[in-house]
């Protein structure tokens, strides 16, 4: 480089849309860069959440020149050809959302079906004698949404819990909350509300509160938005399944650097699952403390 000294590795971390979730991943990538010293991280957010925009971002990165890209695949079945092209030009791994049939070297992230199963377990815990549940998500055609949904269905199969339906909101929070309110009006006997995307937790909480059903209806959700954790702490949310985006970021950068440094084993196995955690009232305080530390608060 122009600054002299040893050439720095340029690694890119491409996510799927703009959300708080990625703040933690970013902290992870930064921590890794600091530890390694010879890495420069380019953190990219295609804000619309669309495959086309992501593709453009990656095209631009390739044009700019990078040594490795970690990407959260928006469409695993149909971006394959494009991903293969990318893999031909640089080191490619996937994180958060995989495309297993592509030529990416490795996947680092959550197994969303397994995460769904975990949520299913929480639901069974909170509804020991069964009941009706409604599921809320932004869009069902996103891979992680459909996998989590599949996981939940798998776990609940044969139990007395009945899934009424799925309500989508196209990431419009107002509508997410409105969906909850409408559900509570239409199905007065709904026992538990499940949110699959991070903002669905707070949206459910708000909707339940504004409908005056706080406490009467159970809530299970995903991820760790502030309001979600506060809800878990005060008992209005039974539990949330959290991923460890910090680990995605840290491991992706560290392992890509190692791999490029010659240690091929760092990205061995094709899939390196970062487990999810079930956060309930008893472990929420400890979890929160850890998050704050990661973010340097």
């Amino acid at each position, binding site marked *: 480089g122009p600054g002299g000294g040893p050439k720095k590795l340029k690694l890119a971390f491409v996510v799927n849309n703009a959300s708080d979730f990625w703040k933690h991943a970013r902290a992870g990538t930064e921590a890794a860069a600091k530890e390694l010293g010879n890495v420069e991280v380019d953190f990219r957010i295609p804000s619309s959440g669309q495959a086309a925009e992501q593709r453009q971002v990656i095209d631009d990165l390739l044009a700019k020149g990078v040594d490795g890209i970690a990407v959260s695949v928006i469409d695993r079945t149909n971006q394959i050809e494009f991903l293969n092209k990318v893999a031909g030009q640089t080191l490619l791994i996937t994180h958060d959302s995989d495309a297993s049939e592509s030529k990416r070297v490795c996947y680092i992230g959550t197994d969303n079906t397994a995460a769904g199963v975990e949520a299913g377990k929480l639901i069974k815990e909170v509804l020991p004698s069964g009941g009706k549940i409604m599921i809320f998500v932004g869009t069902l055609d996103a891979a992680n949404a459909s996998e989590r949904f599949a996981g939940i269905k798998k776990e609940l199969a044969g139990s007395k819990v009945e899934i009424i339906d799925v309500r989508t909101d196209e990431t419009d929070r107002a509508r997410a909350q409105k969906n909850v309110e409408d559900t509570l*009006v239409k199905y007065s006997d709904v026992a538990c509300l499940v949110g699959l995307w991070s903002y669905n937790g707070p949206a459910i909480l708000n909707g339940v509160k504004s409908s005056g059903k706080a406490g009467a209806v159970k809530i299970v959700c995903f991820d760790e938005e502030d309001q979600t954790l506060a809800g878990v702490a005060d008992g209005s949310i039974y539990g949330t399944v959290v991923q460890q985006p910090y680990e995605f970021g840290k491991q992706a950068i560290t392992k890509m650097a190692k791999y490029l440094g010659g240690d091929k084993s760092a990205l061995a196995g094709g899939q390196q699952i970062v487990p999810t955690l079930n956060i309930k009232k008893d472990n929420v305080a400890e979890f929160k403390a850890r998050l704050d530390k990661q973010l340097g608060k």
Partner: protein
Amino acid sequence: MKKELGIFTLLLVLCGVTAVMNPRFLSVTNLTNMANIIGLYGVFSLGLGMVIITGGIDLSVGSMFALAGVLLSMALTEWHWPWPLAAAFVIAIPMLLGWAHGSLVTRMKIQPFIVTLCGLLLYRGLARYIAGDGTKGLGNAEGFETFASLAKGKFFGLPAPFVILIVLSVIMWFVLHRSVYGRYLLAVGRNEDAARFSGINTRFVIGTSYVLMGLLTGVAGILFAFYTNSISPSNHGNFFELYGIAAAVLGGCSLRGGEGSVIGILIGTALLQVLQNLVNLLGIPSSLNFAVMGAVVLFGVLADQFFQNRAAKKLVRH
């Protein structure tokens, strides 16, 4: 009023049908929820209506919501400003931006569509940058409980946003239909030249309509921030400009300017929200949500047109 009659009938019919098919439509909870959401959307739709009446448009509403929401959250929870100051700040910013829009439109003669499209891009970018792309929240309203209860509490059993909408609508009704300023808005929207030749300060009238829009956007932005209680700047308020424009146009505002009424805008807003409620209450699959909305609106407009044509013909015959 004649113009609004058609869409008002459609609204009544929809309510009737929904109430019959699912009596819970008329439950207190549902009506309260709906009043709340109508309040939220109504406030900024009123502002959009005014701008549309002058022949303009404002595409930046949603982005302003994001900016206002982020600033509100930071002012209250991070900088710990007293809430009246925070409220004034969050209303002043959109007004200032509205003033800038108005100046660009009237002095620099740039099309409103372009000005506010740039606004749409700019303000969302700013909101995201200020928030560091993270979600901002209002938490449990510690330290500004009064503010929170003003924005999402209840008055006389009615949700605050609804009450605020009613108050603002009454004021706006007088402004648009009974005040000199309102008459000027309509005149400027129809024929700016003729208005200027009549001694109307058309720049001032058009410019202030954007400031007014800013004011209402600020108020709605606060209500909306308290409604979601958390603001993720990348999608908070996305597409809201479209809802507002649709409400205004459905309610009889013409995008060519010079036409529109407060009542019409309110009915338009209510119609859109009732439609969403209906789709949910009747258990129509989420995926068809939009399709049903589109179809009903189209049908309504068609029927309205049909009856108006018939009425016009009758008038001629006799």
